[in-house]
């Protein structure tokens, strides 16, 4: 694809519209290709890893006491006796034609099995993400440039970062579930019948998942805002009559946010990974549980599907961060002018 090069005048102005559209196409294609490549690599590595670990779907189904003849027969039936590239090729073909195969342990099409669980895990991740953004951004901005209780705040921040979500999850279940009875630990309510109950349940799980990331994001934002606050343009803005709120909103945030947005996107990927653990603690029937069960069952079609969904999610988060950053900061625009 040819993009027209603009000629520089005495000084450079931003790219004219026509070339921006052209660049956008190029960018979208590049992004999509990179995303697809990531997902392919991840899916292949998962596939290969399954070949390396001991045991397969046949041993998982028949148990350790099964005779070699029966195992061989089942392997032939499931197609596990063929070489790895053939099996991967078959899976890939199915994936591109919209067929994720069927689960070896549940004897059900994979998509039917994981569709509702995907929704639940996405819900948990989104609630966590919103929680992280909604708490850490105001916290980071508010504490920037304020030195009161600095020691106590740093200690709290470190504690928040250090305590792992599974422990926070157990603590929250004990205090709010067992103690205050706001929810019943281990019994995730059916969202169709008890929406409020399900929401409260998810909120606590999300809180356990979010706390370390809230601490990290708030600290990062605080330091970037603080750095911006020390810059000369802030002094200019104050001399022009801006108050603290105006300085932060109009001047500092737009310069301080881009790195934080990138960080939040990485966080999005970590949340999805972290949700696997938290789902175990809170007994939420999401993808995480399904993944753990399917790995021990050597149910590779299900694992493959889940891994690809997670990879897709990570790629999506990265792209979203890029696009948001370009909206916030024109200096990061396509083509990287100036």
């Amino acid at each position, binding site marked *: 694809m040819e993009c027209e090069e603009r000629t520089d005048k005495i*000084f450079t102005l931003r790219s004219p519209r026509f070339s921006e559209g052209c660049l956008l196409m190029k960018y979208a294609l590049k992004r999509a290709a990179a995303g697809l490549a990531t997902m392919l690599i991840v899916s292949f590595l998962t596939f290969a890893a399954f070949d390396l670990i001991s045991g397969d779907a046949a041993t998982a189904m028949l148990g350790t006491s099964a005779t070699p003849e029966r195992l061989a027969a089942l392997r032939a039936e499931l197609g596990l006796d063929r070489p790895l590239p053939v099996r991967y090729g078959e899976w890939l073909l199915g994936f591109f034609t919209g067929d994720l195969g069927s689960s070896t342990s549940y004897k059900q099409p994979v998509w039917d099995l994981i569709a509702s669980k995907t929704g639940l895990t996405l819900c948990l991740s989104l609630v966590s993400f919103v929680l992280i953004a909604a708490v850490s951004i105001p916290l980071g901005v508010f504490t920037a440039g304020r030195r009161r209780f600095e020691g106590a705040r740093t200690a709290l921040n470190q504690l928040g970062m250090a305590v792992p979500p599974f422990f926070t999850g157990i603590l929250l279940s004990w205090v709010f579930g067992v103690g205050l009875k706001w929810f019943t630990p281990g019994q995730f309510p059916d969202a169709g019948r008890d929406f409020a109950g399900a929401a409260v349940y998810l909120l606590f799980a999300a809180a356990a998942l979010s706390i370390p990331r809230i601490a990290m994001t708030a600290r990062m934002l605080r330091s970037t805002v603080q750095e911006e606050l020390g*810059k000369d343009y802030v002094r200019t803005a104050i001399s*022009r009559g801006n108050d603290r709120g105006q300085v932060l909103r109009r001047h500092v945030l737009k310069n301080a946010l881009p790195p934080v947005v990138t960080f939040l996107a990485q966080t999005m990927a970590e949340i999805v990974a972290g949700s696997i653990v938290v789902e175990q603690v809170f007994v939420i029937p999401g993808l995480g549980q399904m993944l753990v069960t399917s790995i021990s069952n050597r149910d590779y079609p299900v694992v493959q599907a889940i891994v690809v969904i997670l990879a897709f999610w990570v790629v999506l988060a990265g792209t979203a961060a890029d696009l948001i950053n370009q909206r916030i900061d024109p200096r990061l625009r396509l083509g990287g002018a100036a």
Partner: protein
Amino acid sequence: MSEELVLSLRHVYSGYSDGAGLFGKRQRQEVLHDVSFDVRHGEILGLVGESGTGKSTLARTILGMVRPDRGEVVHYTKRPQMIFQDPYSSLNPFYSVEWTLEEPLRVYGKYGRAERKRRVREMLERVELTEDYLKAKPSELSGGQRQRVSIAAALIRRPKFLIADEPVSALDVTIQAQILDLLRALRRELDLSYLFISHDLNVVYQLCDRVLVMKRGRIVEQGTVDEIFDHPKEDYTKQLLLAAE
């Protein structure tokens, strides 16, 4: 030159808080000691002294960005505006020239959109930039162009008194001369008075009518340019002059 005043300082002591311990204990750093002087209508008053003597603290105190500990700062005009030293860092890199110029009007909120645009164009012309620059970002401008934008932003609310803190010291000599010419022309056209802070005595000699000499937070000598440059009384002033030759 009339005797009408735009600013007077009487026995001003000022400083800043610094250093925070674990729970934010602060120490007060005295910078200005008993500073008194007047800025007369229409004059360019130079303020010279080595770096670290409190020239910038004085500017901030006048602007109200630092509260004086003691003494009086009396303004006879509306809020003065300020031009800063480093044109590379004193403009927000995120915004276009147009936004930067409109901002002081937006902060006070009483100017309509059309009025803002009109003033921005008028001011851009005054600082000898064309409308092509409206959409440019600071990173796309040269140092001299940026300083012109800073001057325009300082003047957009039509103040009568301007504080310039080393406005040309970061620029090339030829650009310096252009900016000094511009400041002179603007004083004439817009009936301005300046407090011109500089450590460069040559620049002060070219531009100013009167000079304040500052040493460690005190005004040690003041007078007309001729008095200070030809018949300095204080040893410190003599040293400064000697160093500048």
